Structures are given as C-alpha cells and as structure tokens.
C-alpha cells in the first residue's frame, strides 16, 4: 500500500480553517467521520448534507477540487471493490443499463462508496489545512498519551531521512545491474532492509545521546502551546454538529 507523499498533502494558507487550533480540527474531523459512518445508507438527503458541509470547508480553506480528486485515488481499490459487488453478490436481481445486477449489491456499493469518499475527503481536508507538527500537538491536547505522540513525532521526523537512505541503497544496487523479478531474487532488498534497521537503530542511539546532552531524563518536556480559544471550538463545531444532527435524524427515521 502506498504511503503517500507527506509534504505534498499540506497546502499553505491563512484561511479561517488553517488558523483554527489543531485539536479543534482533529476533533471536528473525527466527529464528522463518525456521523458519516453511522448514517443509514438509505438517507440520501443526509449524505447530500455531508457533501455540502465538506464542500463548504474545502471552499473556505481554498483547497482545489483537483487536489482532492488526486488524493482520493488512494481509496481506488475499495471503490473498485464497491463497483464489483453488484456483479458478484447474491440476492434479487435488478436491471441497470441492460445489466442484471444484485439489488442488495447496489445498495452495498453505494454505502461503501459514499462513506469511503466522504471519510477520505474529510481526512484530506484536515491534513491539507494542518501542518504535521500541529496535528501531533492536536492529538496530544485531545488526551492521546504523550508517549504515543512523542513516538509519532520521532517517526515523522526521521521518515524522510530513512526512506532516502533506503532509496540510495536501491539506486546503488540498480547501478550494479540488480533488477529482480522473482521473489527468490529479492534477497538483496531484504538485506538492504536489514542493514537499514541496524543503521536506524544506531541513529536512535545517537539521537538518544543528543537528548541526554540536553538534559533529557526519560520524560519528554512539556512544550505545549496555549489552549484553543472558545471561538475556535465554536467555529469548528459547526460542521460536525450539523452532521451529527443529520445522522441522528436519519437513524431515527430508519428505526
């Protein structure tokens, strides 16, 4: 599974969305996605509401639709699966465009499609308007254990460096004619991974030494910033509150 391109996900800007405190945005995005996930699939109107909310945020944050479309290709395999379902599923058949497909299958495909797209778009908007260190800070403010957040911080910090090292090893191998096509030829790749682990471990020891040199005693210091203003919470809450309200109405109607 591709891991995506880190820095390419953030779009620099000063919109109202960009300037919201990160914990507010993370909480709002998460609540929004929950609303989407629990909505019964028959409630088309609710999904239209979500779509409008998401589009509104995208406009406010000046995130171009093309950008969203490109990033959404990450969920392509699941969209493909969704499209396949009506053809392979069991259940009563219906006629669509001359093809006989499963009625239940169509409902399922719609359900998976709309939730995956809305969920992914919400995530992408969060990441497009919030720089990575801020997302981590937001997580910390939302009571994610600080050890977890610290580990995540180190991971994000050293990811590019380590990925580059791996890339350099691969180039060095290719420069010496290594172009494997079968699993039993993958030995050198595995060796590169093993070597990379050792180098990474040794780097972590040097980093630890640098931390000790600056007074680290086993607990990361508290470098948190000011808590979010009430207005930030109010502004950000608009989207998920509306969404959750829609979801609850939809569920009530469905019961």
């Amino acid at each position, binding site marked *: 599974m591709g891991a995506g391109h880190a820095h390419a996900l953030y779009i620099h800007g000063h919109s109202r969305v960009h300037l919201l405190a990160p914990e507010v945005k993370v909480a709002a995005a998460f609540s929004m996605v929950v609303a989407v996930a629990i909505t019964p699939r028959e409630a088309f109107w609710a999904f239209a509401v979500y779509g409008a909310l998401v589009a509104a945020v995208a406009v406010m944050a000046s995130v171009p639709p093309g950008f969203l479309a490109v990033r959404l290709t990450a969920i392509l395999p699941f969209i493909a699966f969704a499209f396949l379902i009506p053809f392979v599923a069991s259940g009563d058949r219906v006629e669509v465009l001359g093809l006989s497909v499963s009625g239940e299958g169509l409902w399922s495909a719609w359900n998976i499609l709309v939730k995956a797209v809305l969920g992914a778009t919400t995530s992408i908007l969060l990441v497009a308007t919030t720089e990575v260190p801020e997302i981590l800070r937001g997580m910390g403010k939302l009571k994610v254990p600080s050890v977890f957040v610290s580990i995540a911080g180190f991971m*994000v910090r050293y990811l590019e460096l380590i990925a580059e090292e791996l890339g350099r090893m691969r180039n060095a191998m290719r420069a010496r004619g290594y172009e494997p096509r079968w699993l039993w030829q993958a030995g050198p790749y595995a060796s590169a991974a093993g070597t990379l682990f050792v180098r990474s471990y040794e780097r972590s020891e040097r980093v630890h030494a640098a931390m000790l040199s600056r007074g680290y005693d086993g607990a990361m210091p508290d*470098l948190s910033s000011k808590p979010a203003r009430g207005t930030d919470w109010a502004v950000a809450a608009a989207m998920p509150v509306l969404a959750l309200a829609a979801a609850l109405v939809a569920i009530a109607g469905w019961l």
Partner: protein
Amino acid sequence: MPPALEVNRLSYSYPDGKRALDEVTLAVEAGERVAILGPNGAGKTTLAMHLNGLFRANTGSITIGGLHLDEKTLPEIRRRVGLVFQDANDQLFMPTVRDDVGFGPANLGLAGHDLDERVSEAMGAVGVSALAGRAPHHLSGGEKRKVAIATVLAMEPEILVLDEPSAGLDPANRRELIDLLEGIDITQIVVTHDLPLALDLCPRAVIMDGGRVVAEGATTELLADSRLLAGHRLEMPY
C-alpha cells in the same frame, strides 16, 4: 578563576578492550578557543563525548568550571557543556525548530514566557529566527548546523564543544559558521579535520593520535610544522 575545562589523565577503553583514550590531560581557560586535531580514529570524538558525561572514563577526571564530573553533577555538567554533534540530524529530533531549541531549556525547568524568551534569544544569536516553525528535515545542511548550535546555546552553556562543525558545508556556509563562532563569546573546543578553520578560529591547538595528546601549542606553530603534521596523517591543503 578556575579553568573552564580540566581533563586530568583521562583513560577509556571500549567494551571490546580497544584503548580509545590514554592518559589524556588538557586544560582550557575561560574564553579560549582550542582546536583538537588528529587523524581518523585518534579518539577526538571519543574525548568530546566524555566532556559532558555521555561516556564515562575508566580512570582520570574531568572538571568543568571547578565542578568535578560524577553521577550527581551530571545534569549541571550537561548544562555547562554544550555538545554540537557531527551529524546535525542526530541533534534535531523535534517536529519544529522552535521545539528543538526549546527542548534543552524546557528540561532545565523553563516554561511559558521564560522559555519563549530563551528560545528567541538562542535563535536570534545564530540567525535562524525565520526558521522557527520549520520542520528540521526540510532544512538545508547549513541551516541544520546553525539550528543545532542554537539548540545548545539555548541552555546557556559555559563551553561549546563542536565535533566537525564544518563537515559537509559549502564554502559560503562554512564562512558564515566561522563568523558565527568568532562572534559568540564563549569557551570553545573544536574537534576538526578542517585545518584552515582551526587556524582561523582557534589560537591554540592540540594534536591527538592513538588516544594520546602528542602535541600542543599555538595553532600557527603546529600547522607550520609539516613534519609534525605528516607524522600524524595531517597536511595543510595549501
């Protein structure tokens, strides 16, 4: 006034038995800038790692501004001795430059407004204030080096120990670094292969080889002695 640094008959062997430091003795006065020169494997970096207690010697002692280095004094020694590592990447491990520069002082107990002030001062001293919100992996080599120095200056040390500070820098960055170090009024110990930098920056130099101090004196004199240099796998580039 006690010397800024006193190393007395320091000896250290690696766990596998290899002798890395052999009765190293060195004294540095407050405000001095001393270069530590020598071939690869001479023990220069190993010595640097002893100065703030990352490595602990087998025999001998280290005294910083009159304070003897041992288990109990370690935190204070680490404040007094600011170590700038060879690879800036090892030293910049926080999500942003501001976080990195603040890491040290925060560990010393600073917080809130005091912390912010200290961070601003340190960043200003090396000229990286504009980089405050940047992530370290997006900085250039020269910028990383300067920020690394800031992270250490933020602890208001008495001695700056720099391990190969000019390694990997282009000539312009290198010049900026030398100017920066000349401008900071603080005792400096510079481990380096860059002999011209040593000549520029440090009036006094020490040559190490095989874990021992083999020569000591005015940098201009040592570097003029080509036989001495050649004997320890050193040579001036011009």
